[in-house]
């Protein structure tokens, strides 16, 4: 009896230095240590059935990341959460786990936007950094290049940035929040914003605060403890 579970988890420090494939490998091994009967694909090289909402690049932490796992026999989501947390080193933590219907749409197709907290060390910023930010916000086109397989593709970064709000400009770290588009083929990256500002070398901390999904309330049902995932919203961000 296959079951599909959705996990909300945190990628903190020091694991923010992992790339997406490293994170995936980590969860595979943690699931194996926790003896959770994950479903495997068929074929010569069977892979565990795990799906992530959205890859988080090297260096980024995530406060409310999402993944789905498929298990071969029905599990109590809360027990899965605890069993996994017993296998998590510093930086990883499962915040919540709940069941979703097997037929629910794939997580990556639900993601629309992402919200980030970006901090840059003030001492390393140029004197006119505020003007740089203003110019960035006023611009209609900011062309950047990204790697697509073997070639570089030019794309306009600006329309992918939906909102940029300065939160703290006086402390040791200048802090702002950033809301970006996050859809297949149209994903705004906060580090690209920093690079576009010319701040490649500025020490930074980038944290994804939440993923904003397409309204899926009717499909994401919490059958476990009656608590709905959006109950988390006050402290962990609205994830449905």
């Amino acid at each position, binding site marked *: 009896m296959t079951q599909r579970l959705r996990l909300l988890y945190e990628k903190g420090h*020091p*694991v923010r*230095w*992992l*790339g997406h*494939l*490293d994170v995936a*490998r*980590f969860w*595979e*091994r*943690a*699931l*194996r*240590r926790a003896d959770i009967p994950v479903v*495997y694909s068929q074929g*010569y*090289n*069977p892979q565990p059935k795990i799906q992530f909402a959205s890859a988080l690049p*090297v*260096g980024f932490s995530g406060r409310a990341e999402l993944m789905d796992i498929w298990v071969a026999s029905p599990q109590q989501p809360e027990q899965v959460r605890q069993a996994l947390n017993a*296998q998590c*080193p*510093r*930086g990883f933590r499962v915040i919540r786990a709940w069941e979703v219907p097997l037929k629910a749409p794939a997580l990556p197709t639900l993601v629309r936007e992402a919200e980030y907290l970006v901090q840059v*060390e003030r001492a390393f910023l140029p004197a006119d950094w505020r003007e740089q930010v203003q110019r960035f916000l006023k611009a209609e086109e900011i062309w950047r290049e990204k790697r697509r397989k073997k070639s570089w593709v030019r794309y306009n970064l600006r329309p992918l940035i939906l909102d940029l709000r300065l939160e703290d400009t006086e402390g040791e770290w200048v802090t702002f929040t950033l809301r970006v588009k996050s859809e297949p083929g149209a994903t705004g990256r906060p*580090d690209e914003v920093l690079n576009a500002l010319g701040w*490649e*070398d500025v*020490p*930074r*901390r980038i944290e994804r605060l939440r993923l904003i999904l397409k309204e899926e309330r009717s499909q994401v049902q919490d059958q476990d403890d009656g608590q709905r995932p959006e109950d988390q919203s006050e402290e962990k961000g609205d994830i449905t």
Partner: protein
Amino acid sequence: MRETYTPSSIARELERFLHKVQRPARYVGGEWNQVVKDWDATPIHVALVFPDIYDLGMSNLGLAILYDVLNRDPHILAERVFLPWVDMEAEMRARGIPLYSLESKHPLRDFDLVGVSVPYEQLYTNVLNMLDLAGIPLRAADRGDDDPLIVAGGSGVTNPEPMWAFFDAFFIGEGEEAILELARAAHETRGQPRYERWKALARIPGVYVPHFYRVSYNEDGTVRDVSPTEPEAAMPVLKRIVPLLPPPVTRFIVPYIDIVHNRGAVEIMRGCTRGCRYCHAGMIYRPVRNRPLEEVLQAVDDIVRHTGFEEISLLSLSSSDYEWVGELVQELTRRYKDKRLALSLPSLRIESFSVDLMEALEGGRRRSGFTFAPEAATDRLRDVINKPIPTQQMLDVAEEVYRRGWTTIKMYFMIGHPTQTREDVEAIVDLAHRVLAIGRKHLGRKAKVRVGVSTLVPKPHTPFQWVELAGEAEIWEQIHILQRGLKKPGFHLSWNHPHETLVEAFLSRGDRRLADVIERAWQLGAKFDAWGDQFRYDAWMRAFAEVGLDPEWYARRPRDLNETLPWDHINVGVKKAFLQQEYLHALQGAVIDDCREYCYSCGILTYFKHLRRQVPDEAWGCPPLGRGKKRQPVAPRPVPMYVNEEMSPDLAAKYGPRRLQRESRTPRRNPTPVTTEQKP
């Protein structure tokens, strides 16, 4: 000039720039099963260094074993240190960040003991780079009393002489017990004058403190004499071994990034009884010790539970020779059939039994490649190197491999063996073609043969230690023969560049005078010598020229049997007389059997008799001692099983026809109960 960094300031500084380096996870630690102890509450601090990047260091079983042994002791903490890759090194140097440990981020200088694992010679320049990045004087003689003791171990220092100046001490042999003694000695002598600390180390059996020996040279440049200068200095320094394999590591640190060997490992057997004459490992890791079957099975279960690894490798120098290999594979397949655990069993002999083992292990999945390592392509040359697997047997096994659906056979050869002719090289091409033809018959165009060719680097403590490295022009000519012969689709040829081979050769065969060359080469930019893209041949050649030495003299001079070799004062448990006899056998084409059939008194039982008596009969490959024991006969010197007819017709007649060396699964041919104790 350098600001003093503390663990917390290092951690803070890392956060500032790690986004600019490749694979930053190499530099932060924090993995599952990492051991972090309270620095102040734990008296003894040991850094375990692998002088290359994380990706390689974390793949090294030796380091994982020592980490486990040390951290089991409540008084000791052991932390890992790896070298930064060039991008990270540049950042660290620009900011003056010293080399630090992954666990607590303490600078290397803060430790009592720095244990450096040196499994191969191409790491020598990295050792200098490591010391420099740590802010520790390169030469042991220049270090202050507060500097940690820097001790090397591993198969890359069985000839310690080229690196003599840079280490306070070398440990020869198996370190599982001695590392605890070294840690205590380093801690207890902290603050004492360095010379006294060296004495404390030298009192530990297996430890070589190079500053306590004087070397003199003959006019022709060869070593005249090595003599100890302090009563603490052993002469010779006999390697240490453990009588039984210590409990296997089961709580491996689980790396986040994809490292070279991203898997668990169980050492099922240490040592090898086959006696291949080129093989350094086969000589220095004697005697054979088997890990009990139950222990291996338990270890596999525990590793899966503790790490979640999807693959476990069962390691030994010759897996088919593990006493209970059939039972092991059968039981593992039974237990893990539905659990999706990949098991690998490298170093299988070219026998049909190996094909059965692989088939069972792979369980119908992941049909990739099958590896043959004949190392020479003619029956004659394999007699010379004492790896007598008949060509016909190889072809039969190849037939079996392709018939059962593996598409690729990898074949490893060496060129430059003593007595090798052009025909022996052409035979590599011929053999590869015959193997591919078999593959084509079963699989058509899908069949592949990958040929890997390296040049023999005659290693210290092997019967080939007197042999010279082949000349560069000769090596190129042979590589060209192979390139021409293996151009067709279906083949893939890889080979080592002769320049890299030369560096490996003079580093393994050098004497103390090479220390200046190594230091100069490092100053000129040599580091990461094992990484093709970083290798700096020009730096090495210039360093030799500036120091006034000749690399050819070290690498390509055949050595006289009576010469005092630079490493003669290091005893790896194998007698020089045995090696000499085996060298002469090589030149005659005389083949000896697996020494589980016939003990040839290589020296192990002379030096480690007391340990042999402590352990169960089946625990070692060497004959048990005592009356009435069932054991192989013992010969005081190696006796050939047969002698190659072409090479020595007269002798060949005396010893009789060609026979097979002991096959893996066959019971011993001569299990004779011996009533009187024979002295091997």
